């Protein structure tokens, strides 16, 4: 891993204190007077903020992951021709008939971005949304596509997008994990989707909550002591740390022992800070309501995720992933897609509005989408199947242009034909907004330098401000 000289630190978010902590403000000795060789050995918190390759436009990412493959032609990919072709048979697709979207699209905002009636709240933010209409995946199978969306590869176990981001930038708040994933699915790759693979383990995502369950009652593992009060635990820690410091003195110059000492202090602080950040009851009633908390059911549940995400973002967490599903509407499209959209529409709109009113949207990249889209042509009357050849994502904030559509599918929405965007391109662009060059963000493992985008990936420059 690269070590950065303080003078090279560029990111506007870094203070001198951040800078020092990266070099070791150790317990053992004064790092700055040490010899170069000693500096190499000095304890470096691998999570300390690191300077990006170039000034990024986003400091953090909130990825709202919609598991199951949301239908693009019913949500964010307006296809007027599809409506005209309704009922026509498509060649080469098992003679299936095209089905128009049961929902109308209207133009919204100054930009006139067409958004489906399924997202009335989010549509109010049309001028902040960048619709990525030319996405494609390599396979229409959930597990593979889902893992590829998260790690770039479904063939091999590779580090996840969040882990790479954290590896590239470190974290701004060392009292909290730098990569948090809320209620991720156990299936479709499970922990692989927030894993660190060959990257050091501390870059892996910290999972909070279980898939499909509300984060209301959930917490992070081992955050609370059921036996000791705070004072007793501090006394225990004082005793423990006195022993550790004795050992450090004995060993001298041991980054390892310093690491142990720091990990306990951080853990102790995390105990205090983490529940606070996760405690949504702190928020004014108005804000809670804005996110749909209290509305019950799935709106409440996803609203909590969104509000928690904002609080984590505010507290300096680098990468936050939210989960919602399933969007796999082979049947019951009209009912289930309506319900899904309803449960995320208000919370997502609130998240954008809230970030904006805190002036955080400008450097927070918000992403929405799933592993693929759904077929415009149908076998059953009220259901759509997997479509990997063309689908949509959207991004907002973090230096991405609002009120635009990038990429396009064919007239019926079957395949991406214009500015086709692979997951590699998608990943390259996200890293780019963070100030990371996807070709330079490498990690040496098993004799070669690995990257998130393997040998692929092109930044979607047209969508950047």
């Amino acid at each position: 891993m690269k070590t950065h000289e303080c003078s090279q630190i560029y990111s506007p978010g870094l203070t001198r204190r951040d800078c020092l902590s990266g070099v070791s403000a150790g317990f053992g000795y004064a790092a700055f007077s040490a010899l170069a060789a000693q500096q190499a050995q000095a304890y470096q918190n691998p999570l300390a903020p690191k300077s990006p390759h170039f000034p990024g436009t986003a400091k953090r990412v909130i990825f709202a992951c919609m598991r199951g493959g949301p239908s693009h032609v019913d949500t964010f990919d307006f296809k007027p021709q599809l409506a005209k072709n309704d009922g026509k048979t498509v060649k080469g697709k098992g003679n299936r008939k095209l089905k128009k979207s049961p929902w109308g699209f209207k133009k919204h905002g100054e930009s006139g971005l067409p958004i489906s009636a399924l997202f009335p709240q989010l549509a109010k933010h049309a001028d902040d949304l960048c619709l990525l209409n030319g996405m494609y995946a390599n396979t229409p199978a959930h597990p593979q596509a889902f893992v590829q969306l998260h790690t770039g590869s479904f063939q091999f176990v590779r580090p996840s997008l969040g882990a790479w981001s954290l590896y590239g930038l470190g974290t701004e708040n060392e009292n909290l994990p730098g990569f948090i994933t809320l209620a991720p699915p156990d299936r479709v790759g499970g922990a692989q989707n927030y894993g660190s693979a060959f990257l050091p383990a501390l870059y892996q995502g910290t999972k909070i909550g279980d898939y499909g369950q509300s984060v209301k009652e959930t917490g992070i593992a081992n955050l609370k002591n059921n036996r000791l009060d705070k004072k007793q635990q501090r006394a225990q820690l004082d005793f423990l740390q006195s022993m550790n410091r004795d050992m450090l003195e004995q060993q001298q110059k041991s980054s390892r022992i310093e690491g142990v000492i720091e990990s306990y202090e951080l853990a102790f602080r995390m105990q205090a800070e983490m529940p606070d950040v996760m405690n949504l009851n702190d928020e004014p009633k108005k804000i809670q309501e804005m996110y749909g908390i209290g509305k019950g059911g799935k709106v409440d549940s996803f609203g909590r995720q969104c509000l928690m995400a904002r609080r984590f973002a505010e507290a300096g967490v680098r990468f936050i992933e939210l989960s919602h599903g399933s969007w796999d509407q082979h049947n019951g499209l009209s009912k289930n897609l309506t319900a899904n959209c309803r449960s995320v529409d208000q919370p997502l709109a609130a998240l954008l509005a809230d970030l904006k009113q805190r002036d955080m949207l400008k450097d927070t990249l918000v992403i929405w989408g799933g592993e693929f889209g759904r077929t415009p042509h149908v076998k059953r009357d009220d259901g759509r199947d997997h479509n990997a050849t063309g689908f949509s994502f959207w991004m907002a904030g973090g230096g991405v242009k609002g009120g635009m559509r990038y990429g396009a599918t064919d007239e019926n929405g079957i395949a991406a034909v214009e500015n086709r965007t692979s997951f590699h391109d998608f990943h390259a662009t996200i890293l780019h907004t963070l100030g990371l060059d996807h070709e330079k963000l490498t990690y040496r493992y098993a004799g070669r330098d690995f990257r998130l985008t393997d040998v692929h990936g092109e930044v979607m420059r047209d969508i950047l401000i």
Partner: protein
Amino acid sequence: MKSFAAGFCLFCFAFSSALADPKIPQGQLDFFEKKIRPVLVENCYSCHSKDEKIKGGLRLDSKDATLMGGDTGPAIEPGEPGSSLLVEAIEWGNDDLQMPPKHKLKPNEIADLKRWIQMGAPDPRTGGSKAGTVTKSEIDYEKGREHWIYQPVKKPAGAKKLDEVVLAKLKAEGLEPVGIAEPEKLVRRLYFDLIGLPPSPPQANAFFADVKKLGREKAVAKLTDQLLNSPHFGERWGRHWLDVVRYAESNGMERNFLYPKAWKYRDYVIASFNNDKPFDQFAKEQIAGDFTNSDEAKIATGFLAIGPKMLNERDKEVFGYEVIDEQIDATSRAFLGLTVSCARCHDHKFDAISQADYYKLAGIFRSTTTHFGTKAGGGNRQASTLMAVGENAEKKAAAWKEYNQKLAQANKVAKQRQGKVNGTKKRLAALKKQKKPPAQISKMEAEMAELTKEMKASNNRIDFLKKNRPPVPDYAMGVTDREKPVDSPLLIRGNPETKAEVVPRGIPAVFEPVTGLPKIAPDASGRLELANWIADGKNPLTARVMANRIWTHLLGDGIVPTVDNFGESGQAPSNVELLDFLAASFMESGWSVKNLIREIVTSDAYQRSSGHHEKNYEIDPDNRFVWRQSLRRLDAESIRDSILTFAGELDPSPRDGSVVDQMGDRNFGRDKKATELLRKGIGTTHRSVYLPIIRNATPTGLKIFDFAESSLIVGKRNETNVPSQALFMMNSGFITNNSKKIAERVCGTDGKVRKQNELIWRGFQLVLGRSPSEEETARAAQLIASHENPDDGLITFCQALISSAEFRYLN
């Protein structure tokens, strides 16, 4: 670059050949020579010809090659400029495919090329395509062989003891070795390093007594022998090997199917280390044990079967090559420290391993059937069989199969009959209800009686079958040879859709003058030859790689720090003489792992203190030349097993089988019963090596402390210090519960009332193996006093001891 066809080749070779027309009208020929050839030579050949480069697998220097195309399909469709990739590329219409990349062709050149394709692409150029499209290898074997690993293992002249070699290097580097560690430290080091468990206070005292009586050297030698003979030795060192071979009990991909019999391989590994099986034999068994009659050796081939697998893959051939790649990767890195699988898609970027070399090995594994089991369906499209093992395995398996078939048949018949019975019963009831004529009713009653009789016969048949159930055969994972061996074609860019020439099975060419290359008979897969070649004393890598692994576990860092990569991209050895000394001794002793461990731990180099030395530190801060012992963290297993030991909770007996076997053949993620069993399995108090290792569901307590990622080959684990570890020690139920039990043990079960200072002393002795200083005693007393109830205080104190860096590190 966006891959616009995602690696799917559309071409049909027969079709393109059929288009070859030897007679080209003169006018077309002239057009080609004047307008087309110069443009191609000028603009395309530098990247797309046999004599220059073949980028993207595409050659444009012969008719056939052009028709065949590259990785993404044929370059041209004769007669159809509109659907020719070449046209798409030169028109620069697609952002992802713009050729030539630096400048666009002139409009008239583009028009000419389109016209030429419209004509049917008349082309007089010969030069073949198929074999010719093999990516030209630029590997310089001569130069590659200069890398140190290809030199034979050479024991440094005159050196009799390991320490002489270490000291010579230290002297040369201007370093002074530090002193020997105190007995308190040595005894912990030896216990943890050799068996992964802490010494109990009496065991430590026995060692101290021996040091006094026999002197340090003899006392260490005695204890070493004792520990090497402990059954716990195999549990510790077997686990090190399980890290290397990515041991786990499920396929671990998007869908997670269990490997219920993987534990047999685990037990084989543990037993092999306990029995000090010669490492050359150990290697041979794992790669080709199926060539023997021994069940043990057959189970050993589980090595090739337990890797992660993409069972959801639809395409059998793609899946097959994934498995092969995984096997090549595991075999070459585990035994040779070579990253051969880097050469799957192109020549190795650093080492003298060509893509053809890779496919030589691929042919060997392509001639192999992998038996990994797993339940078909539910997203598993690639289930396989298992190997029957045990006495009369084949007979038993056949009988079992027959039994199951018969039973299934009987059940089917019974079900049909039951259906009839139910139907007739209903009809009969209806007849009676409708008060139909008695004749009709009695006829049906007779029918019913007959059916009931048949039903009874069916049930009897099932009972009979079940009563005479043959013994359940025993299964294991592993490999066997396919009936007929088959070579592999070289796959351009590793893609099974773009096959090039067939590569005969064999060993990478770089080894030819070093080891000689084994001949592989036409009817042999070559796997046995590969195994023998790896285990041959002439192989310059096998002994070095294993000796380096052993050294790493005992000294903290490898002589070659990149333990799984000895190639050019790995790190150079810090002391090649030392590595060769160890490798040579290893082989001389008959590849005895225990012997090599004994040689290392009885050396001064191993027994040195881990203390600081200012001058040495300035020269060699990373301790590359071993002027001291390294400070090493206990691994996840030792942390858990020690805490259970202190608490008096550890069950030292080996666990019989695995809880995963009880879960049975199923998809793990979807099963509540399996999840419950897993929870119970993780909750047992057997040693950690026996805990269920399901990929993506490894026990948290192990994962937190950097347990090996079970989908990867891990010769050296990460060592992190993260808050989640601290939180685990501070707050987890496991630690809280065991802290209470440790406190109880510190109090003693003999009913004696002890003073607080004695309790503090006993805590230090139990957990850290030493007496506390006066100051420490005072601080501990203060901590205990901060609780109202001294019993609570004692628990808090014991928890602090196991949370300390001193416990977690070997110094």
